[in-house]
């Protein structure tokens, strides 16, 4: 038993160890911290995550700002895509009305929206909307630029919409029929049959959507007017040839993305145990 646990752990750790070893070897061999800094140099940045970096504030602060931006765009996508997906999945007419149109925009990568989005929103932010021009409120609101939120929104919208439509349209008709025979109103059908039956699919779409939203972050934070966030930290560090900060930023993005994903996996495992065993 002890042996199998040991072997399992070794299998999991083999690739990361190989990776770190080759990183260390290459860094030493190249001996150029702009091309590849050493592991220790990057690790050091994580030992003091609240220390201000290259006059941009700390790693933690920039990560927090990025998270708020992602959540803003993402929540907007959830609130629009889920109801729309339910309607499109349930009513054939709504599906036919919107699907061709919606599908037309799907292949456009979020990044391709950048010029148009800048032309529309420029550097306008929530601060502009609420007409706040100074104080701490300004600092917070000004970080939520419409253009960034829009790019993140576009990235998250489609995976959520597609999964929701799929979830609702694959609800077995027997469930709907039996509910109707038992006296369900149309409201009951939506709330008590369609929504719970398709929720595993919806949550799966939300998980993928959050992943995409997080990936759109760097491109969104490279937009003009941005002065903070991990994405901006990475690009700014690049212009200063601080490759160690670039790598630290990349690692932060990876770790947080993995945690967000883990959160959804736990929810799926806890709440949707019934899907694993139904035929």
């Amino acid at each position, binding site marked *: 038993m002890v042996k199998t646990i040991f072997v399992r752990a070794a299998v999991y750790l083999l690739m990361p160890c190989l990776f770190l070893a080759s990183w260390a070897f290459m860094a030493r061999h190249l001996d150029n911290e702009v091309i590849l800094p050493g592991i220790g140099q990057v690790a050091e940045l994580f030992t003091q995550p609240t220390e201000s970096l290259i006059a941009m504030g700390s790693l933690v602060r920039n990560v927090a700002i990025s998270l708020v931006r992602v959540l803003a765009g993402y929540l907007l996508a959830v609130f629009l895509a889920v109801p729309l997906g339910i309607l499109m999945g349930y009513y054939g007419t709504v599906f036919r009305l919107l699907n061709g149109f919606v599908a037309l925009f799907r292949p456009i990568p979020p990044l391709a929206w950048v010029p148009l989005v800048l032309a529309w929103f420029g550097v306008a932010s929530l601060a502009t909307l609420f007409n706040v021009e100074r104080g701490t409120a300004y600092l917070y609101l000004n970080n939520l630029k419409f253009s960034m939120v829009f790019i993140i929104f576009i990235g998250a919208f489609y995976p959520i919409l597609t999964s929701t439509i799929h979830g609702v349209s694959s609800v*077995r008709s*027997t469930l709907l*029929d*039996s509910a109707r*025979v*038992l*006296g369900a109103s149309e409201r*009951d059908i939506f709330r008590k049959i369609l929504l719970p039956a398709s929720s595993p699919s919806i949550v799966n779409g939300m998980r993928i959507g959050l992943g995409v939203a997080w990936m759109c972050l760097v491109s969104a934070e490279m937009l003009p007017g941005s002065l903070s966030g991990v994405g901006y930290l990475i690009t700014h560090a690049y212009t200063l040839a601080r490759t160690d900060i670039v790598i630290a930023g990349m690692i932060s993005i990876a770790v947080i993305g993995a945690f967000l994903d883990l959160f959804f996996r736990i929810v799926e495992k806890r709440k949707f145990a019934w899907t694993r065993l139904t035929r």
Partner: protein
Amino acid sequence: MTDAPILRIEALRKDFKTKNGTGVEAVAEVTFDIPENDFVCIVGPSGCGKSTLLRMIAGLETATAGSIDYRGETISRPRKEIGMVFQEYSLLPWRHVLDNVALGPEFLGTPRTEREAKAMEYLRLVGMEDFSRAFPHELSGGMRQRVAIVRALANDPDILLMDEPFGALDAHTRILLQKELLRIWEHHRKTILFVTHGVDEAIYLADRILVMSARPGRILDVIDVAMERPRHRSHPSYGPLAERILTILEQEAAASFRDTAAAQHGEE
């Protein structure tokens, strides 16, 4: 039985439109009455429109022509006096057994404690009270159908429509559930309309058997089963009765086979 029938079906017809636009007649000019508290079975070859007929009575499909009267009222939508049990698995997989059985009363606005007490009472009726907190996927096929039956009963319907409810079960479980269904029916006195393609099942259960033709479905024969219950498959009238129904069904199957072959030939 001099009372008015609980269900009166007159010249009922149902056409379906297929993908290529041609109409298919599923049910053709069906007329029959169902007396209150009768156990009526409908047998017919597969695809003869017997499920469609049942769905129309349940109010899930609209008829192309003809009428369905329940106690003198026309049926156009589902109503709580008419319950239905489906062949396929129809329980909500995310709700445990008790919440599934309480579903009908929940839709009708019964308070929680009251509907749960009611659901529990019905679970006791089929000996499933210990499984009230189990989820459907933890139950066997026979248990699921027991729950589906009492879920329909919890709404206290007058008529119970059953669409091949035991079709997916193994032979032993099916026989067990047939017995249980008769026991429930004798206690609660519902009118039952039971669709099956099992001739044996129909003879075992029914007061009256309606034999349907191949598509488009018509009523070919109405057979009153006079044997007293509990019935035994060794009863002398059992064999001849089965023979009579099977002969009709066999002819129908052959006819529909010829029609299909001819239609396919014609298309080429």
